[in-house]
């Protein structure tokens, strides 16, 4: 690997120009660089969410979509009697793979190379974009068709290609909707989940050349319009870019699972295929797919099996792409691997079940997270890839309700990682904040019974603010105002229970 662990005290390398100071709590490994890709938002989560929460259309669209997919998932998961064992098998396979990730990646490289493919190592988004751009340029083509891929969204590949005069055409229906609407994805599996049918019709009517002006919002009509639009592009495409759901080290096989068949078109028709894959996607053995291909579709689309599963290894003369490039992307993943609590986030198979059950995601929507990885998994993955200080509000964007952990097909303990990252953020501060002063003071008080009883008496004095009413006034200074703006606080009692009890039992 090009990214080997460095001296524990090493300064952030020049490869990560904006690498945050918290990088030093890792092993000094580079995080995803600033200024490229889509892992950082422009606003903190609370600010972005505040705007999103006022969007009634968004709330309705998300509420409907997540409720439907939650129900479908629950039904098909309940059909599998050994689901919990499967889940634990998935978790164990991922943990074992991560423990020897370097070896599996090198084996993958050998096998892909032996089958006529070329492997490229990209330490970050900038390198990956440069590699892909050069490969496309070398073919002489000025357009590529794309299979839906989180890795290429993460690195901002489409923008990089555009800057080089190469048009990237998204062929996944939802990704196409996002691209035509000049929007950004808001969900890992359903990037246009924030749009409803009539909004999609409006986008198609305005952006698809030659579309029937009488297009309705009937799903079949919308799908047919997209199909006609895309068919022409599939047939003329000479280069395709994809991601990968899995890569099997022992056979050099790449795998993409999908629903629409657009992926199959991209993976088979063009002359050149370029696959960009996060290094955590490798599995050691072919048989490992047996576990993950059961876990993934049920968790993600709520189907027993996804309609299309494409696997390929290198190139086959006379059949499919004759040139195959695999770009292995780090972009902060090795830094995540160095954190013994946080590394579990790398086990993610991008099913998005955690998004669909998350009460925060359901209301705030994916854009509020500011990263291509929204929802609970995004709240643990994005801050680790960028360094926690660059996404410091995300670990707090959760009520720690635990619904994500329950549905995760590889049992990632997301709530524990969220709590861990909150601590990483707190411990990365070099200056005291109002919050840290308060919490440190409270820690002293709560560990000393005498001080604690004094503090409780002081809190009890708050009852005089109520002037005999059962609740405290609604207008109180910050930070209490953040509570009292929308909820009443009960009038505190004159005496705590422990105090009352102790006095009664002293007699």
């Amino acid at each position: 690997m090009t990214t080997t662990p460095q001296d524990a005290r090493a300064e952030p390398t020049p490869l990560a120009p904006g690498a945050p100071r918290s990088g030093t709590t890792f092993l000094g490994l580079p995080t995803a660089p600033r200024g490229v890709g889509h892992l950082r938002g422009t606003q903190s989560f609370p600010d972005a969410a505040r705007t999103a929460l006022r969007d009634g259309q968004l709330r309705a669209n998300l509420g409907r979509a997540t409720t439907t997919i939650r129900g479908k998932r629950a039904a098909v998961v309940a059909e599998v009697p050994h689901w919990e064992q499967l889940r634990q098998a998935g978790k164990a396979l991922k943990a074992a793979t991560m423990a020897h990730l370097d070896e599996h990646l090198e084996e993958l490289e050998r096998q892909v190379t032996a089958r006529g493919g070329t492997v490229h190592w990209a330490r970050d988004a900038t390198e990956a974009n440069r590699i892909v751009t050069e490969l496309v340029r070398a073919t002489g083509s000025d357009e590529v068709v794309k299979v839906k891929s989180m890795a290429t969204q993460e690195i901002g590949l489409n923008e990089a290609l555009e800057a080089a005069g190469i048009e990237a055409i998204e062929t996944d229906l939802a990704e196409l909707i996002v691209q035509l609407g000049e929007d950004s994805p808001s969900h890992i599996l359903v990037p246009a989940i924030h749009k409803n049918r009539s909004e999609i019709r409006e986008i198609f009517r305005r952006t698809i050349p030659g579309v029937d002006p009488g297009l309705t919002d009937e799903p079949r009509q919308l799908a047919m319009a997209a199909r006609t639009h895309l068919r022409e592009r599939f047939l003329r495409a000479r280069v395709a870019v994809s991601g990968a759901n899995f890569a099997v080290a022992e056979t050099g096989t790449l795998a993409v699972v999908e629903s629409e068949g657009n992926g199959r078109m991209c993976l088979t028709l063009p002359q050149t295929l370029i696959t960009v894959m996060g290094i955590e996607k490798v599995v050691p053995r072919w048989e490992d797919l047996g576990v993950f291909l059961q876990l993934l579709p049920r968790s993600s689309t709520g189907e027993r099996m996804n309609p299309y599963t494409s696997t390929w290894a290198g190139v086959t003369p006379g059949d499919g792409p004759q040139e195959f490039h695999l770009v292995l992307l780090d972009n902060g993943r090795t830094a995540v691997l160095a954190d013994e609590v946080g590394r579990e986030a790398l086990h993610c198979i991008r099913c998005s079940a955690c998004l669909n059950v998350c009460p925060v995601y359901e209301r705030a929507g994916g854009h509020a997270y500011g990263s291509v990885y929204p929802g609970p998994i995004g709240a643990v993955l994005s801050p680790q890839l960028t360094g926690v200080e660059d996404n410091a509000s995300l670990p707090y964007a959760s009520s720690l309700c635990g619904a994500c952990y329950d549905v995760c097909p590889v049992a990632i303990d997301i709530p524990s990682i969220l709590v861990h990252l909150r601590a990483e953020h707190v411990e990365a501060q070099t200056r005291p904040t109002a919050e840290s002063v308060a919490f440190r003071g409270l820690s002293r008080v709560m560990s000393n019974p005498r001080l604690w009883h004094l503090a409780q008496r002081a809190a009890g004095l708050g009852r005089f603010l109520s002037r005999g009413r059962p609740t405290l006034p609604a207008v109180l200074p910050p930070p209490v105002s953040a509570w009292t703006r929308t909820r009443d606080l009960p009038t505190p009692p004159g005496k705590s229970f422990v105090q009352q009890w102790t006095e009664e039992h002293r007699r």
Partner: protein
Amino acid sequence: MRVALFATCLVDTMVPQVARATATLLERLGHEVVVPPTQACCGQMHVNTGYRREAVPIVANHVRAFTGAEAVVAPSGSCVASIQHQQAMVARRAGEHALADEAEALAARTHELSQFLVDVLGVTDVGAYYPHRVTYHPTCHSLRLLRVGDRPLQLLRAVRGLDLVELPGAESCCGFGGTFAVKNADTSTAMLTDKMANVLSTHAEVCTAGDSSCLMHIGGGLSRLRSGTRTVHLAEILASTEENVSPTQTTAPAVPA
């Protein structure tokens, strides 16, 4: 049995009647209740806000306060979950291995109220009377960390006079989440709004749960809307008997605030 009551910092300071009801209930069931006077907090708020180092002395105080207790009971799923899942972890991370071992041993003897009643004492009918229409909100940590399952419902079904009505979307978080309610007040309020809509759709007079923190959140919202539906902790319902009910069908708290 001699039961040490952990009131929890929030109940002790803000809603002491919940701890009192827990003590009343346990005594009525024939157990001796002790309240260690040096107890304060389990440390959950510190851990969950990122102050895991600062939580260690709080954990140490908790372990000291309950040293020697045969069984500890708390009227909170969330605090018991923190005791069982977090206390030893933060102590160990800070290198305090002896404290971690003690915390682990204490955690094994610490029970959430409904689990203590059903699993340890083996009772579901605690002899309570509460003639009201009640809906039950399963709080996230009792549901997903402690897996209390339907134990609170078993207890509520055995309460005479109580009309238990199912809460739609019961398993959705109410939006409290500790400091989440303040740091992400808008999202928290949006979650609360949907929870309140479900509570109000049941036409229940009372929304109950096993955690005063979540109840303070839901109750604070319901109170602000002057909805008339109030929140009452499970312990208060289970502590209530015929003596607490007046001829006008109002139920005074089993114990005064």
